[in-house]
């Protein structure tokens, strides 16, 4: 039995009050396991991003609990939660959100710098992680000088540099062409996923379903189906 990385129970989130209330996520429960690459798919407005934000300690739910490695994250204070995210969770954002005025190495080193690691040591560690994602020769370049695929790899290097247990990828292929998207996710599957790490990916892109261990299909804030990988074959 694989060890549980994330356990969400009865999660609900709504925005607005009264007649303006919109239920984004309704009584949702899920588990994600170490060594697993879990996809969350569904149409726009189905609550994927809201759910992702709640299980990663970014958006406080109106109801329900989230445990990561047996720890109830929403009982933590804001500072504790920020620390928890910094040490336990790596994020790859849809638009990468890299600082254009920093070098790629400096961008990658940010989580380590936030952990108060020595600057030179952090840059050295960042360079090693850029090497892992195949961008060894790009350490001194600003992100704007890189292609979309390379920027995505920089974002991945930033997400893994602090050795987080959980990796959250939000629409990792949205800005990439099909081949590049597949190669990036294939790379993540082959080199980043491990028995000690759980990867959760929110995506619309059916071309990368083949890399999933499980696929949660969301609609109207609920999980409608749990599939194994190879959903695209259906």
């Amino acid at each position: 039995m694989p060890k549980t990385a994330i356990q969400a129970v009865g999660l609900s989130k709504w925005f607005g009050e009264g007649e303006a209330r919109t239920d984004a996520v309704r009584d949702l429960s899920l588990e994600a396991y170490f060594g697993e690459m879990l996809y969350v798919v569904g149409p726009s407005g189905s609550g994927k991003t809201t759910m992702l934000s709640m299980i990663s300690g970014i958006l406080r739910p109106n109801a329900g609990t989230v445990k990561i490695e047996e720890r109830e994250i929403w009982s933590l204070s804001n500072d504790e939660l920020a620390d928890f995210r910094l040490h336990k969770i790596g994020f790859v954002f849809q638009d990468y959100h890299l600082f254009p005025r920093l070098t790629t190495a400096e961008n990658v080193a940010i989580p380590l710098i936030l952990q108060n690691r020595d600057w030179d040591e952090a840059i050295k560690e960042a360079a090693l992680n850029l090497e892992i994602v195949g961008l060894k020769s790009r350490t001194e370049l600003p992100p704007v000088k890189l292609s979309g695929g390379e920027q995505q790899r920089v974002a991945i290097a930033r997400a893994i540099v602090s050795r987080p247990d959980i990796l959250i990828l939000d629409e990792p292929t949205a800005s990439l062409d099909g081949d590049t998207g597949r190669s990036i996710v294939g790379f993540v599957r082959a080199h980043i996923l491990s028995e000690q790490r759980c990867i959760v990916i929110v995506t619309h892109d059916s071309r990368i379903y083949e890399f999933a261990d499980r696929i949660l299909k969301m609609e109207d804030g609920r999980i409608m189906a749990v599939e194994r990988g190879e959903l695209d074959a259906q």
Partner: protein
Amino acid sequence: MPGILRIAFRLLVNDRAKFAALLVGITFAVFLMIEMTSLFSGILSRSSATVINIGASIWVMDPAVQTVANSIPLPDYVLDEVRSIPGVKYAVPLYSGAALLKLRDGTYQSASVLGLDDTSLFGRPMLVAGNIQDIFAENAFIAVKDSEFYKLQNPKIGTEFELNDHRGVIVGIAEVASSGLFGTPTLYTTYSRALQYIPNTRFTISYLLVEPKTAGDVASIKRQVANSGYLALTKDEFIEKIANFYKYQTGIGTNMLLMTLISFVIGLSISGQTFYTFILENLDKFGALKAIGAKGRELISMILFQATFVALTGYGIGVGLCSLLIWIARLYLPDYAAIITYVNLFLAFAMVTVIAAISSYVGVRKVLTIEPFDIFRG
């Protein structure tokens, strides 16, 4: 430097266009603020030049006197009365007036003339050429080598001129601490010669210069002089009175204050707007930092550091530029009245601090309101 501040520094300086705009805004504002206040300080300092140069502890005058240049003559008996006040060590008369000189080449030049007490020569300037005893010689005058000296055609000892059809001879060249405000050269002579050469009213004493026996006697001297219907002011009080006149009754102070405020508003507009744009452009990145695990106080420290760095750098460059301009101006314009005082520097620093505080407040508010969730939503 902590890593988070190093990131803030690199984000700031690597955005060269905005960094330059921020620096220009602050530098320009500091330059204008210091220039304006320095000019005003220069004017105020020069307006009290006679008080500073004579150096008497207490000045007795008519209560209606507003500036040292516009004295109201005192009757002679006031001198005797003041000398009789207990606590007065000594009291001497001073003549302060203006005269029209006819120089060797026939040109006319107005000049300020100070007549020193014949017995003590109290308030005499420091001579750089000549002998002070020569002031008692026939037609003797001492010329002050200040920024107006050249208007006397750079006289030497022995240079002659005419003053109200009297012959005058330069017997000494002196230096003083401060040049006058009105652009006229200054001559020193004895009190009696000043009265003899320059047409006067019935009363002839411009000011009484008083030295108290002890500092504790000043209050009683002032009180007793007031009882006689006159005004006794310490040197600092007289300088302040003159400064207040120029500040509040001539419009110079108001105009300078307005210009300084306009400089402040310009600096605030340029820097505030640029800094706000800088924050807006990086807002999603700050949100990403928050999502990754940066705490609110770390983001605040980044913004405060950036604002402080820009403010201090701009302040330094602004002060340097202003000092350079004043130095160059003095090379070519000896009359240029501008003094950078600690008060000017502090005032400009305070205004720059306000600019940085307002700019960073706007930035901090914006950054603290961004939710990491917004980053996910795109």
